[in-house]
């Protein structure tokens, strides 16, 4: 198979670039056209043929060599833009190695070998058999990742660690087919894949159905920890759950294949710290996986919401706020010099806080008759509740999907509106009039609009009022700067809201490697994969988030087992390998330009 063919990846671009090249050529020719001088006696000037050393004649019907050099360089550069390639025949198609990166690949009995170690050895032997073959390395984790595309590489230990909570082999196979059409697949896993294997797919599994005990789920909330412990072995399990700090121990007895939920109380001293829960199994032979025996849970941010009330609010509104905020442990007044979490303002205004509550508390103005004095119309409205609009315009209907309006008691609540409309998404409406709405401004600040005249409402004596502020506290906590969640599973999206002006977020992985993530509109999003505690920094602000690699499916090793399937036949067939050739065009263009320069230098003058 010695044939090959040549083509352009972007034919359309080539055809678009040709007119551009022609225009450039035209400009070139115009630029190089001779200036016309009228002379009275041309017989005094050189005849072109009679100029041995200088006064070179230039005839554009026969351009000089320089012209052709520049023309060729221009055409080569144009062609390089169109991504030329040469398609060469290969003896073998590329090999896509799909590496199962789930935690079950680390399972092993004491002194034994894990499926990852066995698989690595098998892969190396396969690569060595065909050293010049193109190999695509695809890590099958929660989502597949093309880790490398090279020939003969065997140092895959840097990206194949067996840390993922799951492995999407089907997605990885699809990625491989897309990246290298016609490639063969080699899947390295610890059990027979659940996907259908194509004839050209080799599969190798060195797993074994081992017993294992594991924490398969964990959650921390409001001073409590919910743990799901599982016994995936065939024998009953007597284990101990250890909570650090404090080394609080809880005895657990699990029947074979049993999964049990256990609630642990977080010690008061560790209420605002990370805690570690460890499942200790005395029988090491019944615990093939160690990485799923321990989980770190960061403290949820439940500190009181600092608030600030603007002096411009009407007296009735300030009084209603004092009634609900004073003594509420979820709120505290802002300290001097501190940026509040919540700013309560009478109208839309700039504020450094992440949440603004705009309370439209002044009653609606009545239409002033023409004969009524302006002075009377401008009287302070706090003192004129009897002149205001009706207290409510219809039944109250909430939007229950939002945290802010969830579970609000509305029975016998009298609502008096102060405005006819509100901006943003309506969360509560009285008849056709929005009375509570929310939106995010361009700085990602949460803006909440409350359309309520407290002087003509019974709201301050109604259960609505404290429940609403409890929802508000919960909303404000989620809008604070920092990670939206402090405990998450590997592969889940972590959103980190950055303080005003911060441009990037620095992440430090559990293994110490750091990376910079650029913020978009004050927020940095990423998907942490490695288990453990991630440190997050932005300027002077520091947070942490715990990434858990828990998975009942991966901890259950009963489905693991050895499996070997070879491709039906190693394809000794013509396979066309596309090799980009733009570099050759660029190199040739550079050589031509260098020759052009040499020609000019030999002329001993400037461009002629």
């Amino acid at each position, binding site marked *: 198979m010695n044939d090959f063919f040549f083509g352009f990846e972007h034919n359309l671009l080539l055809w678009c670039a040709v007119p551009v090249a022609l225009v450039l050529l035209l400009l070139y020719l115009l630029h*190089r*056209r*001779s*200036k*016309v*001088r*009228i*002379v*009275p*006696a*041309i*017989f*005094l*000037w*050189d*005849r*072109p043929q009679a*100029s041995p*050393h*200088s*006064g*070179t*004649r*230039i*005839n554009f019907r026969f351009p000089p060599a320089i012209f052709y050099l520049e023309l060729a360089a221009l055409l080569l550069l144009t062609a390089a833009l169109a991504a030329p390639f040469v398609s060469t025949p290969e003896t073998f198609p590329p090999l896509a190695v799909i590496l199962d990166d789930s935690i079950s690949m680390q399972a092993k009995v004491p002194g034994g070998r894990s499926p990852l170690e066995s698989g690595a050895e098998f892969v190396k032997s396969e690569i060595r058999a065909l050293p010049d073959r193109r190999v695509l390395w695809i890590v099958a984790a929660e989502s597949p990742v093309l880790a490398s595309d090279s020939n003969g590489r065997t140092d895959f230990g840097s990206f194949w660690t067996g840390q993922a909570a799951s492995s999407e082999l089907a997605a990885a196979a699809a990625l491989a087919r897309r990246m290298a059409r016609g490639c063969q697949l080699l899947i390295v896993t610890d059990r027979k894949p659940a996907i259908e294997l194509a004839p050209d797919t080799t599969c190798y599994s060195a797993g074994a159905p081992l017993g294992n005990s594991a924490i398969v789920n964990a959650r921390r909330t409001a001073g409590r920890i919910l743990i799901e412990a599982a016994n995936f072995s065939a024998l009953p399990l007597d284990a101990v759950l250890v909570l650090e700090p404090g080394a609080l121990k809880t005895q657990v007895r699990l029947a074979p294949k049993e999964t049990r939920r256990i609630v642990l109380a977080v010690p008061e001293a560790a209420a605002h710290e990370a805690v570690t829960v460890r499942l200790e199994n005395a029988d090491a032979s019944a615990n093939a996986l160690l990485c799923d025996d321990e989980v770190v849970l960061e403290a949820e941010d439940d500190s009181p919401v600092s608030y600030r009330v603007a002096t411009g609010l009407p007296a009735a509104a300030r009084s209603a706020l004092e009634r609900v905020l004073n003594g509420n442990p979820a709120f505290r007044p802002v300290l001097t010099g501190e940026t509040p979490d919540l700013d309560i303002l009478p109208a839309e205004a700039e504020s450094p806080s992440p949440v603004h509550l705009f309370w439209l508390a002044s009653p609606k103005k009545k239409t002033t008759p023409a004969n009524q004095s302006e002075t009377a119309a401008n009287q302070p409205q706090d003192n004129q509740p009897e002149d205001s609009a009706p207290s409510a315009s219809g039944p109250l209907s909430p939007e229950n999907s939002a945290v802010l309006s969830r579970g609000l008691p509305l029975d016998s609540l009298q609502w008096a509106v102060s405005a006819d409309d509100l901006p943003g998404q309506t969360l509560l409406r009285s008849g056709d009039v929005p009375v509570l709405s929310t939106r995010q401004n361009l700085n990602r600040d949460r803006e909440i609009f409350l359309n309520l005249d407290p002087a003509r409402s019974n709201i301050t004596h109604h259960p609505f009022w404290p429940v609403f502020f409890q929802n508000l506290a919960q909303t404000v906590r989620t809008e604070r700067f920092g990670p939206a969640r402090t405990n998450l599973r590997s592969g889940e999206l972590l959103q980190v809201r950055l303080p005003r002006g911060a441009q990037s977020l620095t992440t430090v992985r559990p293994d110490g490697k750091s990376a910079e993530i650029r913020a978009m509109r004050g927020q940095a999003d990423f998907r942490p994969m490695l288990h453990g505690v991630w440190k997050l920094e932005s300027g002077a602000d520091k947070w942490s988030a715990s990434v858990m690699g828990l998975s009942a499916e991966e901890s259950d090793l009963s489905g693991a087992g050895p499996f070997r399937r070879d491709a039906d036949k190693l394809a000794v067939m013509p396979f066309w390998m596309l090799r980009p050739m733009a570099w050759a065009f660029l190199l040739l263009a550079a050589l031509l330009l260098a020759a052009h320069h040499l020609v000019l230098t030999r002329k001993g*003058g*400037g*461009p*002629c």
Partner: protein
Amino acid sequence: MNAPAAAIPYFADAVERALAATGGVELTAPAQVSGIDGRRVGRRTGNALEFSEYREYRPGDDLRRIDWRVYARSEQLMIKLFSEEIDPRCDVILDHSASMASTERKASAAISLAAIFTTAAANSGFSLNLWHAADTFRKDPAPASPLLWDFPPFETPFSPSANPASFSGQFFRRGIRILVTDLMGPDDPAPVLSRLADGAKRAVVVMVLDPFELEPEPDANVLLVDAETGEERELVLDEGALARYHERLENHRAMWAAAAMSRGVLLLPLSAADFCPEIRPDELFHAGLLK
């Protein structure tokens, strides 16, 4: 007759500049001896009736002109000289070949020079003719009024030297003849110079060239086009090409200078830059043409 001068946009400007710069300037006659009526007379003595002066006898002088009465009184042989009266006449000939307008500055300078000479001649009371050496050799009807000249454009495809037969013999006898040209023709200068000098009391060729023609600068590709023949040459004006041009130009001028000297014709090379846009006629005064 139409008014071709209107087709030359810079004609009026050139004439007005010349008139403004030469107010009161007069043309210099070959010799100036005050006559009884203020008319110019020649330096060469002859058979005219006007007595001029005495001088000592020199061998070869005509013995009939010895004044014996003076000899009787002083015993010195003195010759009685008589002034030869010449006509105060002037012919100004302007070359209308296309090469005269190779640049606008050169054409303006040529017009200005013709206007200066005609004005100066008129100021001096000369009988004046202005000749346009175009396709045909013709006399202007209003030579002393430059703004009224019937002025053909500079489009004649040959210079006067290429067609000496057309160089008219209708000039004033024994007058001053001034040819304003660039001498940029490959032809033999002898015929045209002979015709110019024949019968003239004084013949002058004013050679006006553009600075580009005198000192061309190096340049990249230049397409040179001959103003009269249209012949083209595409050259790179590097130092070598310019040096050879200078050499040929000097040879050409030397050929004309030699031919002019042998015929008693004064050759006066001038730069168009001295007459456009400003008139600086110092060279004309130094050469004794104007006073």
